[in-house]
């Protein structure tokens, strides 16, 4: 139960929680995009472009957390 083991545990838990966050976030985004495209099929292309941009930004935020987890996981 020393600091290194706790660090590894934290890395694993952190990665899992980060994925929960991004899964929920991008899932909601995709749901909104689907609904918008269904309501207005002519706007589907614009919605798709905005969806991809927003997904990349949300994922960027998640990857901040992943970088922290990686730093914990590769520490000695």
């Amino acid at each position, binding site marked *: 139960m020393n600091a290194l083991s706790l660090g590894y545990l934290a890395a694993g838990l952190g990665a899992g929680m980060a994925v929960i966050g991004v899964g929920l976030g991008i899932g909601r985004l995709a749901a909104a995009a689907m609904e918008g495209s269904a309501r207005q099929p002519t706007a589907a292309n614009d919605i798709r472009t905005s969806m991809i941009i927003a997904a990349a*930004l949300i*994922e*960027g935020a998640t*990857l901040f957390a*992943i970088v922290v987890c990686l730093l914990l996981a590769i520490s000695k």
Partner: protein
Amino acid sequence: MTLAAAALALGLALGQHPPEATPSRPDAEAAAHAGTHEAHEAAAHENAGEAGHGEHHSLPEVMMHHVSNGTELELPGICGGSFEWNCRIDLREKTGGWVLNLGGVKIDMTPTKHLVMLWVAAAVLTLLLIFVSSRRAIVPSGLYNFFEMLVQFVRDIAVANIGKNDADRFVPYLASAFFFILFANLLGLLPFMATATANISVTVAFALFTFFVTQYAAIKAQGVGGYLKHLTGGVPPSLAWLWPIMIPVEFMGLFTKPFALTVRLFANMVAGHFVILALLGLIFTISVFVAPVSVALALAIFLLELFVAFVQAYIFTMLSALFIGAGLVHHDEHHDEEHGHAAEGDAPHASHVAGKVPGHG
């Protein structure tokens, strides 16, 4: 194709060391999926991951070795008298170690793997663009048409974010950033190449370029006085006691946006490679029979990575254009409000500053 040929030529010409893992066991995966990136990585894994051979033992070490920088290139070629898949080229030996002397401080500037990758990306991009633009025509066709489409795409990003009259000044920088990041990202997906943008120093450099261009654009548009005035965050001089809080916070806020650009690009590139390496490493840690599933999943992640390479280059360029535009737009609004009311002109200032600063995520 040309890159594979260039890799072979490089390996042959420079003379290499044989790899320390001498037995090269025939790979079932390499035979089945000849020519794919995963197979070559698996081959390198096998040679490097065997217990007691070379310096790699555990999967995390192999993963870190593949993703991080170093002064060795591993290319296929003839070394030690026979054809090897991963001959090591020690850059420090080949170049004798480049050192930059700044007064008393010595900075080690020996080329590293990622630096060589950046050179390759720049060289490929330059040659491609020279070749493409030598066939200029009123009605473009072929590869020239494709590149013109891409540059037009970047110009549309600039116009959308910076405004029609200022966009053309910044399109050269934005197009350079877009193409260089795109080619550096894509280069990492080829066999025997590494992703230069998976190095935080490289992405910090790109973000610093954006930072300098943004500040230059803001200072040029508003003047140094106007620029410093905007660092107060729109708080009028009547509330000057707030400035000791506002100015440090706004000053730090100047740096969070490039920091986000850095980490976003770096983490996206590293994460893709890590997942592929981890999936392929499962073949070695669990059993060889998970290979079909593992390679299939790694292939799916590889295609996702290809998509992410394009998207991240686009996002970097778009956010750079957004930050440049945000620095410029203050000039126009400020100009209008100066001619209007004198005292209350700053209250709407605060709201538009708050509204214009984009999210940092």
